[in-house]
């Protein structure tokens, strides 16, 4: 008997006496009473709680906000994924075309991306490797990640986020910069992922 058959046979024998049960989903799944302005406010507050930098700007100020943030980091040649809206592409941007090697990505100082969805209650941005986000390594190897979130992409909670995401795409849920608490429970931001996360919310 193969291990597959063996395991399945053991399972069949084990669960014969297990009673059927019912799953009740009476937890919160709707957006709740928050309007768009409140969602933006909650999202910004929760992202900031992770010690990430948050800006909330109007559509016409996005480019300037991105430029100022990159300048503050001293980043003159930031990486951008394909499909990033042209008005967000900063001066001196480097495209991942042809794809950079891992070593080249490691040498890049920072990256600017959009996202697929953002979750207010948990301060989370989710990337699905779609247009304006790029393959997963782009937001992993550079030490600085600037993510632009459109207000319309912000949902209230985790259930609303899960509902709009496509599981067939590789997803990266990001809540603040990389962190560890492995040494005497002291939180240190930045271990292997980007040590700085900056989020620009477009009203």
């Amino acid at each position, binding site marked *: 008997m*193969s*291990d*597959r058959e*063996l*395991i*399945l046979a*053991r*399972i069949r024998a*084990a*669960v014969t*006496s*297990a*009673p*059927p*049960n*019912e*799953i*009740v989903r*009476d*937890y*919160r*799944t709707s957006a709740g009473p928050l309007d768009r302005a409140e969602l933006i406010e909650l999202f910004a507050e929760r992202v900031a709680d992770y010690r990430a930098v948050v800006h909330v700007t109007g559509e016409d100020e996005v480019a300037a906000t991105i430029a100022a943030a990159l300048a503050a980091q001293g980043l003159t040649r930031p990486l951008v994924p394909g499909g990033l809206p042209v008005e967000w592409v900063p001066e001196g941007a480097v495209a991942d075309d042809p794809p950079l090697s*891992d*070593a080249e990505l*490691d040498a890049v100082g920072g990256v600017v991306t959009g996202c697929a969805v953002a979750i207010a*209650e*948990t*301060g989370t941005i989710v990337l699905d*490797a779609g247009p304006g986000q790029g*393959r*997963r*390594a782009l937001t*992993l190897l550079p030490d600085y990640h600037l993510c632009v979130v459109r207000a319309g992409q912000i949902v209230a*909670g*985790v259930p609303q986020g*899960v*509902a709009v995401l496509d*599981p*067939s*795409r*590789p*997803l*990266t*849920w990001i*809540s603040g*910069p*990389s962190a*560890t*608490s*492995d*040494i*005497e*429970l*002291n939180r*240190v931001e*930045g*271990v*292997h*992922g*980007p040590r700085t996360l900056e989020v620009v919310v477009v009203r």
Partner: protein
Amino acid sequence: MTFLGMPAFPANAAAAVRDSQLRFNLRKATHTIREKRASVVAELPDWARLREAGKQIKDHTLRNLERYLLQMEEAVTAAGGHVHWAADAREANRIVTGLVRETGESDVVKVKSMATQEIGLNEALAEAGITAYETDLAELIVQLGDDWPSHILVPAIHRSRAEIREIFLEKMADWGRPAPEELTDDPRALAEAARRHLRERFLSTKVAISGANFMIAETGTLVVLESEGNGRMCLTLPKTLISVVGIEKLLPTWRDLEVFLQLLPRSSTGERMNPYTSTWTGATEGQEFHLVLLDNGRTRVLADEVGRQALRCIRCSACLNVCPVYERAGGHAYGSVYPGPIGAILTPQLRGMSSPLDASLPYASTLCGACYDVCPVAIDIPEVLVHLRGRAPHPRAERLGMRAAGWVFDRPERLARAERLAGRLRRFVPRRAPGPGPLSAWTETRDLPEIPAESFRDWWTRTDGGTR
């Protein structure tokens, strides 16, 4: 790593209790996470409903495990992945070793995985000439220190920053890029040293091994939650990814994540969400992907009507952080990769209770119930502990004593006679009983209560219920 031949829990715990640095570290860590968890759980008005849904989803999955495993296999295969089945640790290690050999590589990077620790994968790979590099900061500390993990979430909780600095200075060079000579014990400097040490490793290693927090049967998706980004490195950069996952990690539908991505981070790190969660389905971005489905005793647990609830566990470690016994005994005393209250019910079920250590684990609890209260999937750990105690082998002297006590309690007249006898002998009870035995174990640190001259029932009879 081997736990074979380890003494039973009481002896391990007694040694830990005497280690004041360990006591201090454990107390600080468990109380810190405990409070963080309490505050983020209190934020959610529907926590109790999420907890109930989590419990029901897991029970439903276990009840229909065969169907969902087959669905998972089909979905992963359809998405270009390869699925392997391992009935036990040996088979799982054989499969993984073979897969790594096929790549021609002799180095693998690992993202923290309890399942691979449970099966002793690193040791099996080493025998085949393959070096496994742990990449989680705490696991790195444990690996460099040739040590054991002592907590599910923060495996190096027993190490102080000064010890970590020493380990890095002494051992990092043997495993790759050495630690800088001027390394201090500042956690930032230590984390930076780990970042630099591992960055080269991530960029050069072609094979990664992971576990998973969840598998989604409906879509064939795997889910890994982490904080540092080492998980993303392992899941993204290498050309070959091998995930070893216990069969109980399944969830039926994608939608079920809406429950567990709320329950797990808040219960585990005490955050609204952990820094990084990765999900992927089959072969992703040109990678080769293998999923190894692991039984290794899980189907035996599943067959136990009371004990099977332990398979709901999502490894959050909330039960460790509230357990007064764990806080004083530390993780190593449990002699297993699964320490604390959940370990006390999981280990004896997965391994059986033939060793003195495993037989002592169901007794490593006062049944205070704090673990059940915080468990995000409502595992009634005290219930399972009591159930396992009923099956544990008992020392002969205890068995005789318990039988005798049962005989006395069977008849009220026997109990009355025993009480009268104790009352007559009350003057002869020593302040400290000579050892060894249960009486001396008590009187070592505690006085015995004074035995009354007259029992309640004799008083009631003599005074006709206090009316005479």
